[in-house]
């Protein structure tokens, strides 16, 4: 009998523990054998340790490309109802031009997932809320469709659904009379996947969008926000949005 077994740890158990520990140890800065603490099991609630964010590189975002908008619509089951002025809009492309220099930007704008969201502050029923990990959502079960949040949002990020909705996606319930907006594809994020817009942007080869945990210093988004000059839209409002823009 080995000494390990006497102390209550078998040789096999010891090996298992040591390999698991080694797997979590960083091999080099930012490089790990096993990504630790990124995966959340379904039983686990969203954590305050995480702050989901987006970084949009406006130099890489292509003028005229709306792959992110299309991907969002497909993922979330947003269909054209023939009323373009009132259809729900979770993400849109905005073309900017500096009047003096003539420099142009093309940027996607969606819910900015503020740390201090005005849409939450004004909601009379508590339907508009911020999840522990920073994702701002509408609980349709309590939304009464009053649209206060739509007026409070400085980014025009929310829409109300005017038409009956049929054939919804099983993971994205939507219906008439409720306000809605970008959810950062929360159903994907909860499974450690990227939002649909980010995936589509990478697929098109632009790689203008980076999604990740702003609170994790090892994440690509946190490192890029620390390294490059980034800005937030209407930073003067001090809402601390989770969506950062680079090169704006």
């Amino acid at each position, binding site marked *: 009998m080995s000494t390990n077994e006497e102390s209550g740890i078998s040789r096999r158990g010891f090996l298992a523990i040591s390999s698991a520990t080694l797997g979590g140890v960083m091999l080099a800065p930012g490089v790990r054998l096993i990504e630790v603490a990124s995966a*959340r099991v*379904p039983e686990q*609630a969203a954590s305050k340790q995480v702050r989901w964010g987006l970084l949009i590189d406006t130099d890489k975002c292509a003028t005229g490309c709306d792959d992110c908008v299309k991907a969002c619509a497909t993922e979330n089951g947003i269909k054209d109802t023939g009323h373009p002025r009132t259809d729900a809009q979770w993400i849109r492309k905005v073309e900017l031009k500096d009047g003096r220099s003539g420099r142009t930007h093309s940027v996607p704008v969606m819910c900015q997932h503020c740390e201090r969201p005005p849409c939450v502050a004004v909601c009379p029923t508590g339907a508009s809320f911020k999840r*522990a990990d920073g994702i701002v959502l509408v609980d349709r079960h309590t939304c009464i469709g009053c649209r206060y949040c739509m007026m409070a949002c400085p980014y025009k990020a929310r829409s109300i659904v005017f038409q009956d909705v049929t054939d*919804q996606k*099983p993971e994205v*319930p939507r219906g008439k009379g409720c306000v809605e907006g970008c959810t950062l594809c929360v159903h994907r994020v909860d499974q450690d996947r990227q939002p649909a817009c980010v995936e589509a942007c990478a697929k098109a080869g632009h790689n203008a969008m980076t999604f990740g945990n702003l609170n994790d210093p090892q994440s690509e988004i946190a490192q890029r926000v620390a390294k490059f000059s980034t800005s937030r839209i209407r930073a003067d409002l001090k809402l601390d949005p989770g969506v950062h823009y680079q090169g704006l």
Partner: protein
Amino acid sequence: MHWLTHPILAAAFALTGAHEHSSLLSNRTRLRGLALLIALLVPALALAADRVPKPDIIIDKPGQCVEDTATMRRGHPDMLKHQRDLTVREGVRTRQYSLKGCIECHASTKTGSVLGDKGFCQSCHDYASVKLDCFECHSSKPKPASEPKS
């Protein structure tokens, strides 16, 4: 059906002599009539119970649900309500008490939905006359198998 047109009730009515002047009948006759009425009514009520329509509950995938049948019948709205708050507000995505879990198991193999006249949810809710709000927003069909499971 009017009670007088019911064959058994009408017979009992005639036998008890309720339509005649009660003074013409002795107490004994009336008692006998009453006993006969009760004897005839008991099977009549039993027959009546069988005539009450029951909802068609079609279970395509027999087996054990997440709780026993009695608990599910009485408690499923509370389970769903509790689960929906956990999922929407906290991001807990366990499947045991989720609406998606219900639909995946209970959707009809014919229509692929829990709605429709014989759909698992709608057949019972129609019968009990309880409004079914879930599917104004939620999909009544499970995710097609071709798409990645979530």
